[in-house]
């Protein structure tokens, strides 16, 4: 790990994108849950100070008492602020402050919290805010790995390219001249039908432009919105393609081989067409 103490092996993973609305928080919640489901003690930190969302996606918004900024400012202890997930064992959430802004985050403060978390957790997922300014830079500064969430459209791809440049120049690993941050591409809201019509960039188009390894492709799915509104990470919906695709991505993150799926246009069966499904 990248912090000062080398006694622990906690891996810090930032989920980032540059562009907003591409699915960073959805992916943080899904991947964090997926890792915890595999028995690894995991914490997801919401770095989006002022625009707190992770707690809603995780369905723990009513249990937020203290937050990340309180811990940084030593107004609360880490154990007071951490929320234990009710569904998934080994999963914790550190919510952002809704009443503050990104200036409440300092390198020293964030480092202190991460160091303390690294004593107890195997995986620390940093859910980055959109943009390339302070909040996003704080979320990625201490990262060992990055999951770059991208939608198959040109503006999202351009912004992801920008954030990849920042990962390799403004992170602690880059500043210390250490091995660079491990990069993973997560393509979300993928619609094979629209790709076939040429309305959307294909997986290979995006891979060609960003030139980083592909972690997974999450198909556009109604299950994602439903899960968000219910406060359940979509990865727990094992009937949905999106949930299964996230699970595949987690398996690949853990070093397992998984073939890509849900990239083809679904042919509707006769019965389904008859029923208008």
């Amino acid at each position: 790990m990248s912090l000062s103490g080398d006694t622990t092996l906690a891996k810090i993973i930032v989920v980032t994108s540059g562009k907003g609305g591409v699915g960073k928080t959805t992916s943080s919640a899904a991947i964090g849950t997926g890792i915890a489901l595999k028995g690894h003690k995991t914490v997801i930190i919401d770095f989006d100070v002022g625009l707190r969302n992770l707690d809603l996606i995780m369905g723990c918004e009513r249990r937020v008492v203290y937050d990340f900024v309180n811990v940084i400012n030593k107004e609360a202890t880490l154990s007071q602020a951490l929320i234990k997930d009710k569904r998934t064992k080994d999963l914790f959430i550190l919510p952002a402050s809704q009443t503050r802004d990104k200036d409440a985050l300092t390198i020293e403060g964030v480092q202190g919290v991460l160091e303390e978390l690294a004593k107890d957790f195997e995986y620390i997922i940093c859910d980055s805010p959109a943009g390339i300014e302070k909040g996003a830079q704080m979320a990625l500064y201490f990262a060992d790995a990055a999951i770059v969430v991208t939608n198959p459209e040109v503006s999202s791809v351009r912004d992801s390219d920008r954030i990849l440049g920042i990962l390799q120049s403004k992170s602690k690993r880059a500043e210390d001249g250490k091995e660079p941050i491990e990069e993973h591409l997560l393509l979300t809201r993928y619609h094979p039908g629209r790709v076939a019509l040429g309305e959307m960039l294909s997986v290979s188009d995006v891979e060609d432009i960003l030139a980083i390894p592909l972690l997974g492709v999450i198909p556009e799915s109604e299950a994602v919105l439903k899960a968000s509104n219910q406060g359940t990470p979509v990865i727990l919906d094992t009937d949905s393609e999106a949930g299964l695709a996230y699970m595949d991505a987690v398996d690949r993150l853990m070093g397992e081989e998984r073939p890509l799926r849900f990239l083809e246009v679904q042919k509707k069966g006769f019965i389904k067409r008859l029923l208008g499904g």
Partner: protein
Amino acid sequence: MTDSGFRLKGSVVTTVLLEIQTFSLDDIVFHLKEKIDQVPHFFNQAPIIIDISKMKRGIRLEEFEVLIQSVSALGLGVIGWRCDPDALPVWNASVTIPLLPASKARPINISPAVKEETSPDVVVKTVVEERLVPQATKVITKPIRSGQQVYAEGDLIILNQVSAGAEVLADGNIHVYGALRGRALAGVKGDADARIFCKSMEAELVSIAGNFMLSDALQNIVWKDSAQVLLVDDSLEIVPL
């Protein structure tokens, strides 16, 4: 937008100032011609200003007109004259060339051309060869991402892609062994011999010594294929490799 068919703009031009101290036409013409013969191409059609503000005695209109004619006859273009505003001659309105406001000027030192030695027995020559000092080549292995800028004082070699929105600049040549999707500017200090080489031309802009071409134009020549960019007679040429 111009409705009148022209635009009025300000411009600064460096000119030669001929400062007359004492009026002696023959001497002035003789010595001026001597100077011109030393560096003829420097003075050919050069704009010149005649300054009479240092003359103690002053000058008559006839003398001044003859002076203008003589200077013009030497191949110089008289674009104006200057005079001490406190000692403006009464005839100043009769002069056809414009009267310019007085200002500071620096004397020009024109060193005489190397004199031919008169048949010496032993010729000792010191040959000083002028050579370009090669600047270290910068080699980059990582992709250049959108928003990043890389500059090399010599050549720039990139063993990866240059993303759209990135900018690579070099005083010398630029090689991109990947897709060039951003902006590449070679010879940024004016080296017209600099070139750009890339494995896949998809650039937003390519430029050599300030001569540039945008992607719209590039797409009609070479696109998504290996190419080199070079400057031929002040115009960019894109040649497939």
